[in-house]
């Protein structure tokens, strides 16, 4: 299961993801990505990301960037952080300690 709660910090859209992001739940996140602006995926409550889930994040980035928007990750759980570091994913997407610093970066 994946739930995505939407809120705002300043002009940034915060999407708080909770549960699992995988091949089944990826489309739920895809549908929540706006057309532009700064989007922060807050992953404090996200305890599993699969390769298919990472693809959803990459798709979101590619959707936002051409229109001057950006995608940032925040509050990664240690295991998720480790996975994203070792797999080289963090060379594609920026990560921040919390949603506030991500929104204001």
């Amino acid at each position, binding site marked *: 299961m994946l739930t995505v709660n939407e809120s705002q910090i300043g002009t940034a859209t915060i999407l708080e993801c909770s*549960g699992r992001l995988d091949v089944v739940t990826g489309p739920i996140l895809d549908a929540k990505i706006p057309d532009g602006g700064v989007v922060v995926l807050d992953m404090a409550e996200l305890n599993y990301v699969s390769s*298919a889930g*990472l693809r959803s994040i*990459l798709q979101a980035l590619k959707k936002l960037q051409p229109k001057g928007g*950006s995608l940032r990750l925040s509050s990664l759980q240690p295991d998720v952080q480790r996975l994203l570091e070792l797999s*080289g994913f963090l*060379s*594609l997407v920026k990560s921040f300690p919390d949603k506030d610093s991500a929104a204001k970066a």
Partner: protein
Amino acid sequence: MENSFGSGSTIQSLLEQAYKEYQSVDEGEVATYIPELSKANPDHFGICVATVEGKTFEIGDCDQEFTMQSISKILVYALALSLHGEKEVSLHVGVEPSGDAFNSIQLDKKNRAFNPMVNAGAITTTAFVHGATFESRWAKILDTLSAAAGRTLRMDEKVYQSESKTGHRNRALTWLVTNFNQIEATNNLETLELYFMQCSILVTARDLAVMGATLANMGTNPFTGKNVFDVQCIQATLSVMFTCGMYDFAGEWAFRVGIPAKSGISGGILGVVNRQIGIGTFSPRIDEKGNSSRGIRVFQYLSEELGLHTFNFMNHGSSFLSGLSGVESKVLTR
């Protein structure tokens, strides 16, 4: 909510998820063209992953033995390449996907079998296992496959007899490749018997995973440390698996799963993620192309979730190139 990360528990929980999800799939039928195979229990289902670090993860019927059938072709091809080298073997069997069924009676323009995965090519490949006697040739095959599995394997005598008694089409293929001097006429029927025997070797889903891990681990069994295949033959073997391993579903498989694999009509699939893992699945219900219906689904699921596809966006291509020039994608970083 419980944290499911950490590589081991993640793989195990994915296997459990796949098992639960696809256990109810009852599409396809147990193979009947070899009479003895039709006695298989259609409900058997096992999935195993073996890593190059020498760990296994498994669920379901991973102790259930079944005959290797066409999966043996890939290991005997690796053996033939290890013994004689790619140049010599390629003179007699091609590496071109035929798009035809596995038992196709057709040769390429050089009068070779199209590839080592169609029956004519597999029989040609088995002919490369030389020896003073029939027994010594058989020992070489059985010992090599046992070393790849990390345990002593044996043959199912009944299945072998059943294959030998009814395999007239394979007999015809043997004479066809003999006619074009691809195999020796003096012992061609002996070679055919060896082929029937290699197809009748009993394995489990776990054995397939370990064999896959041996191929993934540059030809050395990661559990026993024994060198089984020449490192040079691994790239060639995996290439043939990638292009020809899934009968006339090979293109679709490359598209959807994207890893080298070989299936057998008894319901097994052996997959390899180079330098990382071997995957073995067993479920005897096969589709009209001869591939395990549940097996295909399991592989597709694991490929998606673990990013196994050769062309997955997370896969970096040549590690050598990265080492050489530090080439990394910075295109998307802002």
